[in-house]
């Protein structure tokens, strides 16, 4: 599997990762090599095999729908890059 630079640009956009033009060539080659490794999966016959989502085949546990967490907004927001009156601030999205 050989990716083009444009493929990598698209993947990087989907992943919301800035990849500079300088990095693009090396990243394209690295990702192509990794996908070549991954493609060895094609040698396996998986006809009729169930996909395995959990090592112990457990189903997700459910709990009662009740509030268990305390309000720790001030503590958590103290870690944020930019907040104001309990809100997380980002660049303007609505003109």
């Amino acid at each position: 599997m050989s990716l083009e630079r444009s493929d990598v640009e698209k993947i990087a956009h989907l992943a919301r990762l800035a990849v500079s033009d300088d990095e693009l060539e090396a990243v394209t080659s690295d990702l192509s090599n990794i996908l070549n490794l991954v493609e060895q999966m094609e040698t396996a016959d998986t006809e009729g095999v169930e996909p395995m989502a959990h090592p112990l085949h457990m189903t997700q546990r459910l709990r009662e729908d009740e509030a268990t967490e305390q309000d720790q907004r001030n503590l958590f927001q103290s870690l944020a890059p930019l907040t104001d009156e309990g809100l997380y601030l980002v660049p303007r999205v609505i003109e």
Partner: protein
Amino acid sequence: MHNKTISELALGLRVGDFTSVELTRSYLDRVSKFNNELNSYITVCEESALQSAEIADRRIRAGEAEPLLGIPIAHKDIFCTEGVKTSCGSKMLDNFIAPYDAHVVSLFNQSGAVMLGKTNMDEFAMGSSNENSYYGPVHNPWKLEAVPGGSSGGSASAVAAGLCVAATGTDTGGSIRQPAAFCGITGLKPTYGRVSRYGMIAFASSLDQGGPMTRTAEDAAAMLQVMAGFDPRDSTSADQPVPDYMAGLGNDLSGLRIGVPKEYLGGGLDADIEASIQLALAEYTRMGAELVEISLPNTQLGVPTYYVVAPAECSSNLSRFDGVRYGYRCSDPKDLEDLYKRSRGEGFGPEVKRRIMIGTYALSAGYYDAYYLKAQKIRHLISDDFREAFKKVDVIMGPTAPSTAFGIGEKSDDPVTMYLSDIYTIAVNLAGLPGMSIPVKPVGGMPVGLQLIGNYFEEAKLLNVAHRLQQETDWHSATPAGFE
């Protein structure tokens, strides 16, 4: 003092040979003496460690005798520690002071263990050499130009060099066992679900598992006793009783059936490493165990499958790092998309970005069946290989890694070669089984690890089997020159 096991130190504390404050001080002194050359620790918590040690001394004087009370340990910097920087080896979390403790950290605190600090690691636990840390590579105490393995390389080098008594690690594809092998220590990856993942920063959630890294199997048993158990805050935590791991350590090995996978020995394995493994196996037969050749026919598919499953889950887990709520934010973002892209592009290192992109690609529209679904099916085949094997044998043994510790910089330009160094450990995570690495005869002065793989929730058996070898041989007690 720093060459002693947990139980030896606990005895010394109880009979009053030394106090926990003295013990902690002696480890802190070693950390300040050696951390410059090894880079094992990202954060050292001198003040809080001495405070915990004082509290432990009071509890000991009051007659308490919990196994880890007053024992200085270190946590991999992937475990959240309230009020202490928790970086996960990343620039992204360089400014992150965790607001709560991981479940594992709470358990150790309750046990009275003293936390010396947080150990270095590959960024977000992605790597096999510890070269992917934002805080620089960790050095192997056996040879400073060599890697300690990864991703729990800081914990491994700290234990090997006597910069803590024991440490925690995490293992997604070999990240406890491979550095344990490279640094000549004992490492245990428990069954998936045995140890809570709450507060353990997620990489690949269906594979991640925390475990102990120690000088001996007996120490690993003491550590696992604290770590293991059900936690309702981890939705995949296993609600299974926790046995007394110390109690099983004396069991006789006669009649033990050891499966030796033909795919693990011979082939591409270094001949000297094979000889070390054979020597350990011969030791087991001398103790009454029986060797049975088995086959794990899908071994070669482990690495390719892992490099779909792990990146796919990582791309999803790491989407939370958005430069908005915590962690790194780029300067002067021009709009929201620029904020996301540059915060992530600047905050993550190259390996993390590669894996996020591989995962994003594998999960993107039109590729899901060919990659993720196919990988989940092969995962089933790999798991079935082990199920078949465990019908015939009690434990599986082979090498932990195909080589001894390689040089810093030797493989860092070639991700695929680096990935292949985890060939023997990865399948164990895909199947969710417990695995262990213990030191056997070194090759060229460098440690070699024997890997032990057990059936689900059979950590007690693995610990016993490992402990028996350590009773009969002294490979595990070797100390790197300069760190005696």
